[in-house]
């Protein structure tokens, strides 16, 4: 089986700061992979490198056999990678439906089919009743969900989710987890950054731990949560004891 996304020796340097060092990762088609690590570990930087928002200083990023490293963001999206932003970037004066349609237009030239795809995506995210609300009047939690809807409407093969669960109440997390599972069941590979450990451990088939810009561990949630280096660097003794 050949990987959908292949990162080889990826390095990102900001001036004197090495944010990502010699990073390797394979994401297989259909996987749900969680990317975790302490603040400043380089998770969002790595996302930005994959999505074309940062230039990588070394290495290669290959999507399904095609190099996407250092391609502009819109080309990466056209190749099949959609992302959300940790700090939401809504189209403030567009409605929820219009925002999702912008994504859907990538593969559907005419407005009628873009609208159909957008409505279908909103339905999957339980947002159809908000279709005609302007994005700027949504709560932060809903703005995050709109990020997912927009990205999904581009019908990507790989979806990069950057802390979409932050700010959710414990009751809301399972609902969004179900949504992500159903997206994945629809054939979309998911790579996500998340701080809510319970969510990561529930949904991820594989967990990758980033620490100081380097790969610290890569395995199933159970393996990773038992790994003493991960416990020391990130999870803490308490979590290990509880798991």
């Amino acid at each position, binding site marked *: 089986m050949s990987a959908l996304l292949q990162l080889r020796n990826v390095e990102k340097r900001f001036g004197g700061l090495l944010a990502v060092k010699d990073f390797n990762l394979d994401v297989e088609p259909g996987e749900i992979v969680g990317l975790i690590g302490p603040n400043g570990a380089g998770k969002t930087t790595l996302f930005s490198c994959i999505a074309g928002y940062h230039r990588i200083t070394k290495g290669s990023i290959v999507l399904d056999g095609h190099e996407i490293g250092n391609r502009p963001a*819109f080309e990466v999206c056209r190749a099949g990678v959609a*992302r959300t*932003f940790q700090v939401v970037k809504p*189209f403030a004066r567009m409605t929820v439906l219009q925002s999702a349609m*912008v*994504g859907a*237009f990538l593969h559907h030239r005419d407005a009628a089919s873009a609208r159909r795809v957008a409505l279908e995506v909103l339905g999957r995210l339980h947002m159809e009743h908000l279709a*005609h609300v302007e994005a700027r009047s949504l709560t932060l939690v809903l703005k995050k969900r709109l990020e997912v809807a927009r990205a999904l409407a581009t019908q990507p093969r790989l979806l990069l989710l950057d802390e979409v669960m932050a700010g959710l109440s414990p009751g809301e997390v399972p609902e969004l987890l179900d949504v992500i599972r159903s997206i994945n069941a629809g054939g979309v590979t998911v790579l996500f950054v998340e701080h809510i450990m319970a969510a990561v451990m529930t949904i991820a088939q594989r967990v990758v731990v980033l620490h100081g810009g380097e790969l610290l561990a890569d395995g199933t949630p159970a393996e990773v949560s038992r790994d003493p280096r991960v416990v020391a660097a990130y999870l803490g003794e308490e979590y290990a004891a509880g798991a």
Partner: protein
Amino acid sequence: MRAVKYLLLVLAIVAAAVGPLVTSNSFVRDLWVLVAMWGAVATAWNLIGGYAGGLSLGHAAFFGIGAYTSSLFYLDLHLSPWLGALAGGVVAMLSALVIGFITIRLRGPFFALATLAFAAILGIAATNLTALTHGAEGMTIPFAPGLGHAIFASKLDYYYVALALLLAYVALTWWISVSRFGYYLVAIRENEDAAQALGIDAVRVKLAATLLSAFMTALVGSFYAQYRLFFEPSIFATDISVQIALFAIIGGMGTVWGPLLGAAILVPVTGELQSWLGSSLPGIDAFVYGAILVLAILFVPNGFVSLLRPLFAAKHPPAATQQAAEAEAKT
């Protein structure tokens, strides 16, 4: 509601078609021509200024390029201004390509300044390249009526030409506003990073809007030359660029009808102010005009179109949907 909207549209078109026939007053007919003409230019500006969010203060450049190109075609090459107008459109697009590459990454006020500088350079060139442009003396087109010359004895003929352009531009804007291109422009205006993440080549889309807007503006510039039969390098002046932008802003930028509404309000107001007050004290008309603008910008920042919106209450009243959003937030 939809029926009311279409009825109003039909009424407006009928009024526009027969309006100038009602009067034989030349001043009033001139106002009709000017409303249609500036309405068309403001609609062209709106594509880049309103939809794409690029606050151009240099549209006089494209307007002037249109006027000079068609006039030079006519006077020096003896080609019909109809052809010259198309040539002017092409020249304007080429210049938009150059200035577009320079300015496309600049933020609001800087984009405004750069486009302003671009029009100013053309104004200086038009003043000093006397062999080509007759310099400060200006361009005079001899009055020789004829369809091929695009010169008409009656203001009505000019009016219908301007009206045709205006309707075509408004229709084009409507079509863009409901199509992918329009969605992309608005997405770029609202958040360029997010737009790129959804596969939009922002530079290319913005450049396309700039070229289209330049072409449309230049056509009206050619019309202006054929209508007035005289113009000077001051056609490139910042005042003209500001005017064009203000029509769209006061009317409602980023909307299909806003720029026309702005021209329909401001053109008669300036005309009336000049004829009422202009002779009593020089400057008082401009003073009142400027004061109205400042007040309108501060108190009706979304343009007069936003005041009319309640008339066409949408299928989804914003108040109701907002409550839905809040209810959702609480659950």
